[in-house]
């Protein structure tokens, strides 16, 4: 930070400084190089050139589609027909549509239950990893596997685990004598909701655990020793040292986790396609069904855009989490 004011001066001085050395020789070439040289000394010009690939790709394939999506939400576009402006018609229709209402409920339920479970189990796993620690490297690698492997493919494994006739879970429960009929994991609305949540939690725990473990490792052991000398119980140490120091990272990690869970698509698409009786339809899967399978682009886009307010809420949450961190550490970053 301190060096920054000196930077432009040096940047401007550098190339001209060397040009002063072998002055007479490169004279003829000078004119041809001048615009390039000027570009190299101009922070704005060079910055623009360096930002060009990123800027073009993101504007064309991110910003423009985002705007187009908002516009589509106000039109009655179908596949193959560009559609006309219809105002809030799509949103009014969706607000009264029982399937869309159910999808909103499902999405909230899915996000809230899965996020709470991911947080609690992830924090527990992080604490265990932080304590057990022979071979953390190996353990971390193994724990992260569910997060690395393509979700669509692990979802297929869950599909097989949840199979109505050959489910291994049902087999074990029957052998142990807990149940006498195989559980219909994906055929019953509430079973299906909890089964998909379980698969989502399975996939999300590693991310939460490994990120929180990184946070745990930055907490100085001296604090725990001091607390132990003062007679704090393990629970008090967790509650008064670990948790407050971990809060900023928890805020960020959980924001990302909520963001991914709220907009989840592939797990549901593979396991249930929204069924049974739309009981597991999330807003993203319903949006896909309406827009791509059903051809109602405008309606699908409106459903997708309806997720934005929730995402904004999550981002604001993250922002204030970061603010709090900066404040805690007494620095400006």
């Amino acid at each position, binding site marked *: 930070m301190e060096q920054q004011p000196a930077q432009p001066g040096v940047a401007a001085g550098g190339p001209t400084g060397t040009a002063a050395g072998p002055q007479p020789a490169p004279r003829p070439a000078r004119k041809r190089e001048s615009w390039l040289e000027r570009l190299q000394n101009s922070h704005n010009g060079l910055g623009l050139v360096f930002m060009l690939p990123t800027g073009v790709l993101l504007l064309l394939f991110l910003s423009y589609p985002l705007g187009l999506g908002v516009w589509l939400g106000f039109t009655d576009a179908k596949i193959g027909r560009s559609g006309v402006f219809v105002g809030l018609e799509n949103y009014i229709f969706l607000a009264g549509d029982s399937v869309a209402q159910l999808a909103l409920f499902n999405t909230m339920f899915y996000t809230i239950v899965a996020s709470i479970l991911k947080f609690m189990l992830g924090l527990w796993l992080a604490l265990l990893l932080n304590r057990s620690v022979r071979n953390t490297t190996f353990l971390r690698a193994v724990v992260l596997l569910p997060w690395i492997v393509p979700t669509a*493919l692990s979802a297929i494994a869950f599909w097989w685990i949840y199979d109505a006739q050959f489910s291994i879970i049902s087999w074990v429960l029957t052998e142990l004598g807990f149940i006498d009929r195989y559980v219909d994991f994906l055929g019953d609305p509430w079973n299906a909701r909890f089964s998909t949540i379980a698969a989502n939690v399975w996939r999300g725990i590693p991310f939460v655990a490994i990120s929180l473990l990184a946070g745990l490792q930055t907490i100085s052991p001296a604090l725990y020793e001091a607390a132990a000398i003062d007679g704090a119980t393990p629970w008090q140490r967790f509650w008064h040292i670990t948790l407050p120091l971990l809060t900023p990272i928890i805020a960020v990690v959980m924001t990302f986790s909520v963001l991914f869970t709220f907009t989840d698509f592939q797990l549901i698409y593979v396991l249930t396609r929204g069924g049974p009786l739309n009981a597991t339809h999330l807003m993203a899967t319903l949006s896909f069904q309406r827009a791509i399978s059903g051809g109602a682009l405008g309606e699908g886009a409106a459903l997708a855009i309806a997720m934005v307010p929730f995402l904004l809420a999550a981002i604001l949450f993250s922002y204030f989490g970061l603010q709090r961190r900066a404040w805690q550490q007494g620095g400006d970053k």
Partner: protein
Amino acid sequence: MSAKTDNDSGGMAFLDTRLNRWVTVYIPMGLFLFVLLFPFYWMTITAFKPDAELLSREGNPFWVINPTLAHFNKLLFETDYPIWLLNTMFVSVVATAVSLVAAVLAAYAIERLRFQGAKVSGLAIFLAYLIPPSILFIPLAIVLQYLGLFNTRWALIFTYPTFLIPFCTWLLMGYFRTIPFELEECALIDGASRWEILIKIILPLAVPGLISAGIFAFTLSWNEFIYALTFVSDSEIKTVPVAVVTELVEGDVYHWGPLMAGALLGSLPVAIFYSFFVEYYVSGMTGAVKE
């Protein structure tokens, strides 16, 4: 005493008794590992089971009695699976390479050139990372249709950078920040151009960051689903995750053997690739969260 050598991070392990440690650490840890790894075990064992064993409730389902390669045989020689693997590889490698180049330039510009609007660009890139694919896929499909890229591999290669570039840029900005300014100042005084500084000084020092970003981008592209599902419909240009879900499932009869073999083979490349660079992956992930 042995407990003390077990634990080098807390320094308080001497308070634990051995029994206590089993109950509070090892048993829960074992349960976690069992649950997290069981689907992979189940996937593997199913892929090697002959159909007769798969569809019977007799015997112990946790083990294979007569392992068979029939499912892999069917997958590799009777379906387009090898082509799907090549597609996924091609799309992931090209998208990762494009994103890395763009991200290096952008991160360097934002972090070191400090042009007007660098701060705003940095923030915009962070926000771009927070926009999920599930709200973009409908309008993106229209944009791709308009550009004539729909139902080609290029549709994926051009759209994957929308989530890869923001992540890689954000990660590399953090790495570039740790490289001392003095190195660049010396090089500038010695007459190096910005381009030379980037290639000869910054990039060699940022190799760990580049590896982190690269492996992250590669796994993200390999795992991508919703874009690949929406933008590509011909079987011979599908990627593995989409093709296994859409092409291997026929009607109501599920061929669990080939399905699991397909899931296993599709997971292996990314798992092996990742296992070589675990530390970079973890540092990338935790670094990005902590920034």
